C-alpha cells in the first residue's frame, strides 16, 4: 500500500541528529555591553569607578535595577526598595517576590544576557557557597564593619541581615508557647504551620533544626527535630499549609514557625487586626544570616553596586532593623551611636546562646532530611 519513502524519513533522522550535535555546543552569544557599563561591571569597590558620586552618576544613567525574591514584607524590603528608588530616581523591577534562593540562581542562569536578569541576589549561605562563580566581587564602604566569619574575603558575598528561628502565634487563639515541645499540647491542635518544606526552603530547614534543639537534639543530630514534627503530625497539631501573609491574616495558620523578623513583620502589619506575637523558643535558638551578592553578568552593574552600597549605609541597615531583622553592622552602629535604638529595643529577646550550623553539620542534616522528612510528615 504505502510506498516506503526512505528519503524523507532519513532526512528527518539526519536533521534530528544534527540538532542533537548542535545541542552540545549551543548557547546564545553574549550581548556585548557598552563601554561605560564594563567599567562598572569590573569595579570591586566604589573607588574603582572614581568614588561614590561617580557611582551614583553611573547608576542614574543606567536608570533601572532588577531585584528578585524580595517580598515587600520580608525584613522591610518594601520600604528599602521605595526609599532607594526615590532617593536615586532608579526604577526597581522586583521580580518573583516569593521565589527562594535557588529560584534566584535559576533565574540568573536562564535569563543570562537578557535585560531581565537579576542584578543582585539575597540568598541563603549554602546557596551562595555553591554558586560563587556567578558573583562579581565587590566591597562596600562599610566592609570592615562586617564580621570576618560573615563575608567572603574576596568580596563575592557578604552577610546583610540575620535573625533567629521563632514561633509566631495568634495570642487570642492559642496560649503562649515557651519552647518547641509546647507545641505538642492539645491547645495547638490543627494550628501549627512551618514556613515551607525543609528539604526545599531554608527557613523551614532551620525550623527543623530549632525543633531538634528543643527536643533533645543538637546541631549534629537533627533526628529529634524530624521526630518532633512526626509527633506533631500524629497528634493532629501539624498543619500542612504554607503560611503566607494571607493565611495568617485570615486565621488559617494561627501558629507559624518562621524567622523572627518575618513573624515580627506580621505583628507590625496586623497591629489592631490580630494580636500576633513572636517568641524565640527557649534553648532552641537557631540563627542564620542571609548574604548579598552581585551578579557577574548584571545588566545594570553600576545600579547593582549602588544598591549594595545603600544597603550597608546606616540608613539601609536601619531600614532592615525597622523590619525586625538584625543588620550585620549592628555592633559597629551601636558603638557609633547611629543605630535606631527604638527599633533595636523592639527586637524579640533571645533566651539562650544562638547556634549557627557549620557547613558539615548542614550537609549531614540535609541528608537526613532528604531520606526521612516525607515519611515523617507525609
Amino acid at each position: 500500500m504505502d510506498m516506503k519513502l526512505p528519503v524523507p524519513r532519513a532526512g528527518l533522522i539526519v536533521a534530528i541528529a544534527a540538532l542533537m550535535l548542535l545541542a552540545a555546543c549551543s548557547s546564545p552569544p553574549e550581548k556585548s555591553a557598552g563601554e561605560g557599563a564594563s567599567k562598572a561591571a569590573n569595579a570591586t569597590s566604589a573607588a574603582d569607578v572614581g568614588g561614590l558620586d561617580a557611582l551614583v552618576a553611573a547608576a542614574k544613567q543606567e536608570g533601572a535595577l532588577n531585584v528578585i525574591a524580595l517580598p515587600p514584607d520580608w525584613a522591610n524590603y518594601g520600604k528599602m526598595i521605595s526609599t532607594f528608588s526615590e532617593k536615586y530616581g532608579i526604577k526597581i523591577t522586583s521580580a518573583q517576590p516569593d521565589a527562594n534562593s535557588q529560584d534566584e540562581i535559576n533565574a540568573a542562569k536562564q535569563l543570562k544576557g537578557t535585560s531581565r536578569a537579576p542584578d543582585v541576589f539575597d540568598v541563603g549561605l549554602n546557596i551562595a557557597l555553591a554558586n560563587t562563580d556567578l558573583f562579581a566581587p565587590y566591597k562596600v564602604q562599610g566592609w570592615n564593619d562586617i564580621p570576618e566569619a560573615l563575608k567572603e574575603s574576596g568580596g563575592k558575598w557578604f552577610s546583610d541581615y540575620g535573625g533567629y528561628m521563632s514561633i509566631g502565634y495568634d495570642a487570642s487563639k492559642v496560649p503562649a508557647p515557651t519552647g518547641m515541645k509546647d507545641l505538642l499540647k492539645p491547645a495547638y491542635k490543627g494550628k501549627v504551620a512551618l514556613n515551607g518544606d525543609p528539604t526545599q526552603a531554608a527557613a523551614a530547614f532551620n525550623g527543623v533544626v530549632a525543633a531538634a534543639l528543643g527536643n533533645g537534639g543538637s546541631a549534629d543530630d537533627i533526628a529529634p527535630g524530624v521526630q518532633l514534627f512526626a509527633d506533631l503530625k500524629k497528634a493532629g497539631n501539624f498543619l500542612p499549609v504554607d503560611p503566607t501573609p494571607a493565611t495568617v491574616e485570615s486565621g488559617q495558620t494561627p501558629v507559624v514557625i518562621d524567622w523572627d523578623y518575618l513573624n515580627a513583620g506580621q505583628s507590625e502589619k496586623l497591629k489592631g487586626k490580630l494580636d500576633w506575637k513572636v517568641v524565640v523558643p527557649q534553648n532552641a535558638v537557631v540563627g542564620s544570616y542571609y548574604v548579598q551578592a552581585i551578579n557577574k553578568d548584571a545588566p545594570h552593574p553600576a545600579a547593582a553596586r549602588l544598591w549594595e552600597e545603600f544597603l550597608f549605609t546606616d540608613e539601609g541597615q536601619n531600614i532592615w532593623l525597622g523590619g525586625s531583622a538584625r543588620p550585620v553592622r549592628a555592633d559597629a552602629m551601636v558603638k557609633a551611636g547611629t543605630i535606631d535604638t527604638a527599633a533595636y529595643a523592639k527586637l524579640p529577646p533571645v533566651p539562650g546562646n544562638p547556634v549557627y550550623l557549620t557547613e558539615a553539620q548542614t550537609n549531614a542534616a540535609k541528608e537526613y532530611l532528604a531520606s526521612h522528612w516525607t515519611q515523617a510528615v507525609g
Partner: protein
Amino acid sequence: MTAPQPATTAAPGPASSGTGRRRSGRIVPYLAVTPFLLYVTVFLLYPTLIVVAGAFTDDANRPTVTTLRVLTDGVYLRAFARSIELSAVTAAVGAVLGALLAWAVSSGPPDGPLRRGVMAAAGVLAQFGGVTLAFAFIATIGLSGFATVFLRDHLGIDLFTGGVWLFDLPGLMLVYTYFQIPLMVLVFLPALDGLRPQWREAVESLGGSGWEYWRYVAGPVLLPAFLGAALLLFANAFSAYATAAALVSQGSPIVPLKIRGFLTSEVILGQQNLGKALGFGMVVVVAVVMALYALLQRRAARWLR
C-alpha cells in the same frame, strides 16, 4: 471532464502518492509538513532528548547509569507508587462519573442549550487546574472555607477531625476529579454520539430490554473508547503538576512535586540530574499508558465510524 488523476474519489484506500504524479506534486506536500516537523523537533523532541540525556549523566556530565539507579531508592519508588495510586483512583472515578454525565448529556437534543452549556463548561473545567482550582477548593473546603464553616456551624460536622487531609493525597484525589470528569465528558461524548439509535431500535424490536441493550450492544462497542478515555485520564493525572504545586506544600508525595524539589530546592542542591532522571521515569510510565490508549483508540474507531 477533468484530466484523469490516479487518486480519484472512488478509491477508499489511501492514495499512493508516487506513481504518475508530477514532481511538484510530490514535493509540495512535504514542503507543508517540513515546517511542522522542524517546529516540533525544536520545541518538543529536542527538550525531551535533553531530559533523557540528563537522566543518563551525572553531575560532571559523564554518561552513567547511577543517576537512574538512585531512582530505585525507596523514597522515589514510593513517590511513583503514590503518583500511580493517585492517577489510577482519579482516572477510575473520573471515567465512571464522567461517562455517566456524558450519557446524561448525550441523551438530550444535540443542539440544545444544555449540551452547549455543558460542553463549554467541560472545555473550561478540563483545563481548569493548578492554582485556580486549588484556590477554589480551599475556598470551599479549606480551613475557613464556605462548606467547612457551613457544615461546622449548621450541622456540627467537622470535616477535619482526622487531620487536614485537603493538603495531602486524599485532598489531591478529590481535587483532581474536578478536572478529570469534564475531560472524560469531552473525550467520551463523541463515542456516545456514535451509538446509532437504530441499534437500540433493533434490540427493542427483538424483545430486548434496556439492560440487555447496554450489556450486549452498547457496552462492548463503547468499551474500547471507555478504556481509552480512562487511560487518557490516567496520563493526565499522572502528569499534572500545577494543582499539586499549589495545594501541597509539605512532603512532596508525588513525582512531579519531587521534580520541582530537585529543580528549585534551596536546601538540597545540585540534584538537577536526579530531577531529569525522575522526569525520564515519568515519560516512560506515561508513554506506556499512551501506547495502550492509541491501541484502544484504533479499536474504538472501527465501530464508531
